[in-house]
């Protein structure tokens, strides 16, 4: 199988409200950034383009069609789109390179979640007969999961606060983060509950923004002369939809994807875990089989800023960045999608 590498990555700041910046205007700066990292002029200089987005975030059908206006797709390009987080667009692009129909690909994800009430919007992702009509919001669903972990002594509220404190502290060095600062566990625990047992700080913020990445065969990466990180494993698995039909104290699909991606074949210096709620970071760290030797979410993770439809791709991008900066030799990126971690993707990246 062809060896594939991440060669460029850029992410916008996570902002609560991008205001008068539309989707095209969100995407373009990120595209320009990855082009400039490689000396490319436009999407014409890669072989394939794939994006991830969701119409319902901004409430307009065909949101992704506007995204094409950011690409300079004249003459026409080879292009595709997933109505998913862009981490799955990355997955599609990898298959395209593996089959030999491309040597390089541009991947981008974007989301402008601020126009709607995101936890309520996403309640309509639940089954349309039993759960969606109840307007069971995503924060409440996560809180039900957190209660199970707490009741079974698998996690404590103090553990959760510790995750938040570390995220906020790590985010202080991350200029793209939305929430950062020095907080003690006691301070966090002193906050009142939001949707008990969750406090507001246990929940990721809603962010607007975009991210872009270029991947290529290792041969093409070398030809471009840019630093790269090889994708040595990638896998994604889905589980049952109804959260009551799953063991919510574990993430079986993350375990499956991690095993298939080969997470355990070597040391993991860094892990970027897509955990929108503090307890989920603990749960996912366990499902990925990681211990204290792994640095988890050194930029604060999505608790410091969550670009719906791009955060999964960003996790891969953050691992890439640490590897090419020489801060890690081997890292794991995780992306999630669906109610209570239904669908999970795991990628392993290693230095050149």
């Amino acid at each position: 199988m062809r060896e594939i590498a991440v060669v460029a990555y850029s992410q916008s700041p996570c902002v609560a409200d991008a205001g008068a910046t539309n989707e095209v205007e969100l995407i373009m700066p990120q595209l320009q950034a990855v082009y400039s990292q490689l000396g490319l002029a436009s999407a014409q200089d890669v072989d394939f383009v794939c994006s991830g987005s969701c119409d319902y975030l901004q409430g307009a059908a065909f949101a992704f069609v506007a995204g094409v206006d950011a690409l300079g797709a004249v003459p026409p390009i080879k292009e595709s789109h997933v109505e998913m987080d862009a981490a799955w667009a990355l997955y599609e692009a990898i298959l395209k390179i593996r089959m030999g129909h491309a040597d390089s690909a541009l991947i981008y994800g974007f989301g402008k979640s601020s126009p709607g009430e995101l936890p309520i919007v996403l309640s309509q992702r639940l089954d349309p007969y039993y759960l969606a009509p109840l307007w069971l919001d995503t924060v409440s669903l996560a809180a039900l999961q957190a209660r199970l972990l707490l009741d079974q002594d698998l996690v404590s509220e103090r553990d959760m606060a510790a995750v938040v404190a570390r995220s906020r502290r790590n985010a202080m060095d991350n200029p793209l983060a939305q929430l950062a600062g020095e907080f003690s566990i006691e301070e966090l625990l002193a906050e009142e509950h939001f949707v008990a047992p969750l406090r507001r700080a246990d929940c990721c913020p809603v962010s607007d923004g975009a991210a872009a990445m270029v991947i290529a065969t290792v041969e093409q990466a070398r030809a471009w002369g840019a630093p790269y990180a090889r994708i040595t494993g990638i896998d994604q698995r889905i589980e049952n939809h109804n959260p009551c039909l799953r063991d919510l104290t574990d993430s079986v699909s993350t375990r499956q994807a991690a095993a298939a991606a080969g997470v355990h074949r070597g040391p993991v210096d860094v892990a970027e875990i897509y955990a929108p709620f503090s307890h989920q970071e603990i749960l996912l760290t366990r499902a990925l089989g990681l211990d204290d030797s792994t640095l988890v979410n050194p930029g604060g993770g999505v608790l410091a800023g969550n670009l719906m439809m791009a955060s999964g791709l960003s996790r891969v991008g953050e691992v890439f960045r640490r590897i090419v900066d020489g801060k890690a030799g081997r890292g794991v990126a995780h992306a999630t999608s669906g109610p209570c971690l239904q669908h999970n993707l795991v990628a392993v990246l290693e230095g050149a």
Partner: protein
Amino acid sequence: MAERAAVVGIGQTRYKTRRNDVSIAGLLREAVDRALEDADVSFADIDAVIIGKAPDMFEGVIMPESYLADALGAMGKPMLRVHTAGSVGGSTAIVAASHVQSGTFKRVLTVTFEKQSESNAMWALSTPQPFSVHLNAGAGGYFAPIIREYIRRSGAPDDVGIKVAVKDRRHGARNPLAHLQLPDITEQEVRDSMMLWDPLRFLEACPSSDGACAMVIAAEDSITGSKPPAWIRGVAMRSEPTMYAGREEVNPQAGRDCAADVYAQAGITNPRRDLDCAEIYVPFSWYEPMWLENLGFAAEGEGWKLTLEGATSLDAGGDIPWNCSGGVLSSNPIGASGMIRFAEAARQVRGDAGAHQVDGARLAMGHAYGGGAQFFAMWIVGADKG
């Protein structure tokens, strides 16, 4: 470099205005169960599931692949949800094929659907947003002016669209799954039908259907089922922006480039001669002559002549029958319409197209387009490995 892959199972629902006997999952399962049976496999034999549909607003279920995972036997497997507007049925088949052609999986299930009766297609395709700078005149309001320009340029007589409308409905009457069953339709009926978006009449436009289409795609060493496989000989996709200065809307470059790419992969130098039949996305009758030119079956300005000669008609014994299944003009569950074209092309080369079979078909094309005729997906399938 790509691994060889083939369609080994195909399943479709009956297409209808309103499938009010099934849930959304039930609609998909009808197609999926038939595809699995056709391939003689069960969910246990499937490595990954690839699903496609057009905008989520049709059913008001956001990213419905989440809810559908259980019904598609996807537990513990990879899943991907494709959305490329109207071309999505074709793109989904191509993305599904890439799971096998990349050497990553042996056997995948792919399914596309639309349950348009849950809402209103016209509404779902043009949901209101503030500060809209365009007048909303429906899909026909977008495409009718392009058709008018085609007619002006080519000098085509005004009954070409009518002839396509009759031909595809007569084809559809051979296909028991087709939504519209109009075996006795006449040109006069089409001419007399209400003018919706001049020059487009009611009977020259596609219906709005509920339905699903599924396929099982397998690697060369994992072929199953008793029917011959349809070998995937070429796949291609192209996109261009909806509007840009100087854009050729009548004969989009994305379509021409996509066709050139897929023909090169399949070794086709003259599509009319080399292909035995084609399933081409024609939601408005006039798109047949337009696509005949765009896809290189006829010279520019000459496509309508093939239609008038009967070259695209199975009933007239044409040399290059188009849309023997009845096409989008006979059935249109939007998200599935592209995959139906791809699947029907495969049925032809498997010799399994029933009453709309083209005798001895060995090489066929499936085609889909979407957005403002800006997203294209095409494949060539053959009875031979190539």
